[in-house]
């Protein structure tokens, strides 16, 4: 019963202030509240829980409020340190003439949510143009002592095909993104579109840029459709927030067509519509009815299999234009560099064996 109650609350918090449904009228035992705190942290909804308490839409016992404050303040302290890292990084990238857009948690908290205290995050994410990607990684490792714990597959891979480079800077993590997702759908995005427009916001007196509303919505859709599985309820909340900033479906459909990503948009919209119980008049309900080209259905399957870490690269070959780029990509996947293998604790042989097992569902023993 507790599990069902917590599940019901998680869904309600994901939709809090975004649907006509009120929060359930419940109180929590000590054990139940501990579980709720744990789940909201996992689902990135602790901010929504704090928001509901601040609005007096949820009334807790005094000791529960104290515990919530403790957890919330802990996350907020981390968020502030992440924002300080942002303006340090902004300074370094500006000196190196590297353009960037702040994406995901930091951007959404400051630009989309009504108070950044209600959107918590664990790391910093910035999007870098492909042509400047290597320079960005280099100057952040040199100037700020950033460590890329998992190097790129082979030298040059990330700027041409990669999704991101994760850097540890002190105790904090900064993810430099080149595109939204790994695999074929990350390779078909017209990345120049993402740097044409922007939404400025200010952090610590420094102006930085987030994606424009359409870019943010597209990113939220890619994140929901192709990200964590099981989905994180916080991703649903993000998408619902971002969808409120875009008027009408025409531009979304047009971009999805150009990016060969109708399958992504349709899947994200369908997931959000089903989960949130959206009415037919909602933008996402409309997008969930989009017809999906068969070729994109096939690409989408590569993200949904258990062997996706291997099926996605195979599917990527289908969308990479040109023989030489395909050969470069294939070589990197099949024969990663020594530095990459070392960082994973693998050898070439163990890497190939793992890939074959995953692809063909072969079990050991």
């Amino acid at each position: 019963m507790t599990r069902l109650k917590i599940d019901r609350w998680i869904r309600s918090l994901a939709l809090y202030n975004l649907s006509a449904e009120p929060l359930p009228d419940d109180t929590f035992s000590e054990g139940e509240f501990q579980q709720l705190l744990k789940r909201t942290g996992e689902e990135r909804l602790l901010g929504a829980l704090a928001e509901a308490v601040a609005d007096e839409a949820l009334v807790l016992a005094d000791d529960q409020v104290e515990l919530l404050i403790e957890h919330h303040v802990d996350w907020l302290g981390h968020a502030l340190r992440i924002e300080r890292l942002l303006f340090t990084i902004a300074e370094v990238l500006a000196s190196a003439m590297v353009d960037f857009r702040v994406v995901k948690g930091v951007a959404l908290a400051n630009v989309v949510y009504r108070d950044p205290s209600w959107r918590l995050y664990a790391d910093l994410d910035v999007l870098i143009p492909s042509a400047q990607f290597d320079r960005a990684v280099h100057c952040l490792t040199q100037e700020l002592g950033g460590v890329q714990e998992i190097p790129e597959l082979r030298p040059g891979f990330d700027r041409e095909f990669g999704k991101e480079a994760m850097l540890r800077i002190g105790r904090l993590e900064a993810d430099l993104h080149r595109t939204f997702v790994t695999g074929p759908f990350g390779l078909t995005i017209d990345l120049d579109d993402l740097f044409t427009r922007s939404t400025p916001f200010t952090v610590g007196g420094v102006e930085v840029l987030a994606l424009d509303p359409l870019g943010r919505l597209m990113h939220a859709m890619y994140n929901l459709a192709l990200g964590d599985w099981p989905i994180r309820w916080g991703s649903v909340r993000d998408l619902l927030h971002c969808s409120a900033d875009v008027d009408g479906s025409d531009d979304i459909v047009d971009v999805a067509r150009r990016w060969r990503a109708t399958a992504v948009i349709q899947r994200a919209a369908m997931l959000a519509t089903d989960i949130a119980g959206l009415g037919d008049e909602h933008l996402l309900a409309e997008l969930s009815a989009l017809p999906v080209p068969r070729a994109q259905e096939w690409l989408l399957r590569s993200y949904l299999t258990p062997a996706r870490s291997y099926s996605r690269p195979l599917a990527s070959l289908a969308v990479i234009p040109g023989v030489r780029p395909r050969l470069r990509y294939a070589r990197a996947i099949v024969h990663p560099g020594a530095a990459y293998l070392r960082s994973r604790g693998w050898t070439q042989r163990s890497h190939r064996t793992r890939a074959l097992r995953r692809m063909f569902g072969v079990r050991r023993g």
Partner: protein
Amino acid sequence: MDDIRDRSLRLERDTATLARNTLCGVLILPPGTDEPLHLMDTAALLWDVLSESMTLGQLVDDLAAAFHIAPERVLDDISPAVSELIRCGAIGGDDAK
């Protein structure tokens, strides 16, 4: 540093200080420290009011009028918190003269 009582002192939030609302106050991260400060009660109220630059005298007079308390008493009450905010770098205090 003694508690600040110079009414002509101009108080202004440091722009590099980051802040977030909590359920019982404001969490701030001034420059030069990795440890956020959780402002509650008087300190949180001061942080909120000082979203606009003003002298300590203006601050005292505004609070005195709002809460119907004698200005001297307001100064006694807020001086420690103002001093602490200046000490940690969250608020800048410049002589307005």
